[in-house]
């Protein structure tokens, strides 16, 4: 059990021994954090975007987009293992500056960290806004949008104010409550599937498929939060495996959902649906009339998924800002960001602008999680070789 104030200043303990820093996130919780965030991301519009360029093969591009995300998380997890107990703030400063000029590291890493925090902030607000759009279109038509935004962000703020251990536990708790209903619903919706809708297997040429791949890999964003969460993760090999599993589970679910949507609706109909997964839930009938309106349960589950996604991003943003600016408690940042988030969520004028923003943010974050961890990882490899090289010259007999 961690003492109350001990986690708040990880940044000030850069080279600390293993027994002192609390590693509060177990591998199982790592899987839960990643899965809950990624499932909430794009599950509502993913089938449409996947089949827009790739037509009937949309589900394949979703499955293959997983590999790009696996690559990214491989980089991040090896960085996390190298620098145990440190968030991206501290080790990026080390790597970019080197031992001789620590100030340079601070200066160089500052813009990248700020842009990381900024993108996560924008992500949080856009996901909240997309969520409120769905709720207003499908469930609560007369409720003012700001009420939905405010309450969602307020609940996420309350969770983000707690420590990483609490967040990990909430994710672990909600993980089966999200995954199992979504999986069940998807499997049941196959009753309306017409398999001819999935033929031909390779309808488009390589160029269109590649564009589709890029578009769907955007929906895997969110795992770069591990840059922050890896500081609290137990540095055992099971944690590394858990990160890959945490990408694999949402990948599988997304593939199944896209497969079901294309099989039930056909890609031409998917173009006309604003929220395809919601319509999939609406068209599903569970025989026996126990539960005639499946979409009610589905929406409830999806609210939980969005909630975990938002609060994870919120927490990660606050942590990065806390360590960059050496603030004592990240709770003040959480509180201060709240009006900013509310304002950002209100910015897009209508749902098409929301989609546009999400697309742009997606491309930016793909750039960020392909570029930034790659650079850091390469630098880490260089420095490791330098260190090993120095050692070898010290012991010529080796």
């Amino acid at each position, binding site marked *: *059990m961690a003492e*109350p104030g001990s986690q708040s200043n990880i940044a000030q303990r850069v080279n600390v021994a293993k027994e002192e820093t609390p590693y509060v996130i177990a591998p199982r919780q790592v899987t839960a954090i990643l899965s809950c965030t990624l499932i909430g991301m794009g599950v509502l519009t993913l089938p449409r975007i996947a089949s827009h360029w790739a037509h009937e093969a949309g589900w394949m591009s979703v499955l293959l987009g997983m590999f790009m995300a696996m690559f990214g998380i491989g980089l991040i997890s090896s960085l996390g293992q190298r620098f145990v107990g440190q968030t991206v703030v501290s080790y990026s400063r080390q790597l970019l500056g080197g031992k001789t000029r620590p100030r340079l590291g601070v200066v160089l890493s500052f813009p990248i960290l700020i842009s990381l925090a900024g993108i996560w902030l924008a992500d949080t607000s856009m996901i909240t806004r997309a969520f409120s759009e769905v709720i207003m*279109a499908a469930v609560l038509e007369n409720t003012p949008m700001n009420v939905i935004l405010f*309450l969602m962000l307020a*609940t996420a703020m309350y969770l983000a*104010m707690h420590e990483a251990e609490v967040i990990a536990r909430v994710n672990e708790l909600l993980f089966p409550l999200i995954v199992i209903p979504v999986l069940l619903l998807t499997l049941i919706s196959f009753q309306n599937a*017409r398999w001819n809708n999935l033929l031909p297997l390779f309808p488009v040429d390589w160029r269109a498929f590649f564009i589709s791949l890029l578009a769907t890999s955007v929906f895997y964003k969110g795992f770069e939060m591990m840059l922050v969460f890896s500081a609290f993760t137990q540095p055992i090999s099971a944690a590394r495996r858990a990160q890959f599993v945490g990408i694999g589970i949402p990948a599988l679910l997304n593939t199944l959902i896209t497969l079901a949507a294309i099989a039930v609706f*056909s890609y031409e109909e998917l173009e006309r649906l604003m929220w395809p997964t919601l319509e999939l839930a*609406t068209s599903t009938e569970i025989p026996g009339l126990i539960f005639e309106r499946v979409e009610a349960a589905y929406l409830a589950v999806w609210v939980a998924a969005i909630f975990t996604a938002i609060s994870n991003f919120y927490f990660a943003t606050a942590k990065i800002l806390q360590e960059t600016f050496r603030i004592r*408690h990240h709770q003040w940042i959480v509180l201060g960001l709240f009006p900013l988030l509310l304002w950002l969520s209100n910015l897009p004028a209508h749902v098409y602008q929301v989609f546009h923003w999400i697309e742009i943010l997606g491309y930016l974050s793909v750039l960020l999680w392909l570029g930034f961890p790659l650079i850091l990882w390469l630098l880490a490899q260089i420095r490791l070789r330098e260190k090993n090289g120095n050692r070898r010259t010290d012991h010529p007999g080796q």
Partner: protein
Amino acid sequence: MKPSTFCHRPHVALFLVLLLAGMFLTGCWDRRDIEQRSLVSAIGIDKGAAGDYLISIQVPIPNQIAGSTGTGGGGGGEAYRVITSTGDTLMEGLNNLQKRTNQMIFVGHTRVIAISEEVARENMASIIDGLRRKSSFRRLLWPIVVHGEARNLLTFSPKLEQLPTVFVMDQLKTSSKLGILPKLSLGDMYIAMSKTTEEPIAYYAHVSKEDIQLDQLAVFRGNRMVGHLNAHEIIPLIHIRNQRNGPDVTVPIDPEKNVFVTFHPKKTKTRINTRFEEGKPSFQIRIRMDGSITESTHKEIINPVRWMNEVEQATAAYYEKLAKKTLQKLQKEYQADILRLGTLFRGRYPEAWKKIDCWQTLFSNAEIQVAYDVRIRQTGLEKR
């Protein structure tokens, strides 16, 4: 969960508690008791005299349904009320109807949408758009095209149920379970309208004062109705399109001597092969049916096995004749591919599909061969 030192400050905790209490306010704006809603069980769309639409809604009266024991009497009886209003579009009609009811109209429980043939033949696109956008309209509605006035479907009194809508709903459910009609929802219509490979169909009803004849299908091309298929022509459609059993058929073995046999199909297996030669698609459809005989009016006692073979062949020939008639109608007269053959063709020959511009013309010239293979497995309790 241990609260951090930050949260120990009392005013912060109070503030957060107040925030959380606000959570219970969600949905205040949308809360509506069920007594404050006018539930619509069916919607009817007719063509008005001035070129606009006549939208009718059937609103059930809960008190009457719960309390009444006897039948309601004539049409427009005590268990429901039908209100009609005009409008240039579906939504305008509904808004005008709202001005005539005392509670807020709620279309979430609508199960049947009745469209008059005149409207269906003209253009359904604007109505479909209105139905799609509103989230309360479910995709599981039954779409019915009515010969004549759609309002008749809302006002006829079947006497077996209090609400005509419930009667129609149950009838459609039973029919699709028995295989007399394909199971067809509004969502299926949407999908068929969006796809370029197939055309939509809807149920086609003839309504009189106390009766409804619901055994035909309306054939659409795009958004317009082009014709209908009668009860016999639907049978091969169910075999090919839905790959289900279809209804029982009474096969005339020897009509002069009054010999008929009723065949009840139990298992259907459809195999469709498609080929594309010289710019013309061809389909070979082989349907294998296993079933039983439920009735036979022959008089002489003959060799049962030879007789069964005879009946099998006669049934297969009868089915093939029906299929030919249906295909003739679909290919030549309507030029509408409602058999989902286009989807299959696009799946097998995507390159060829990209080159053609209009599937309907190709479909009307396609060569479609249907071969039935009927096997009789049971003959009931009589040994003859």
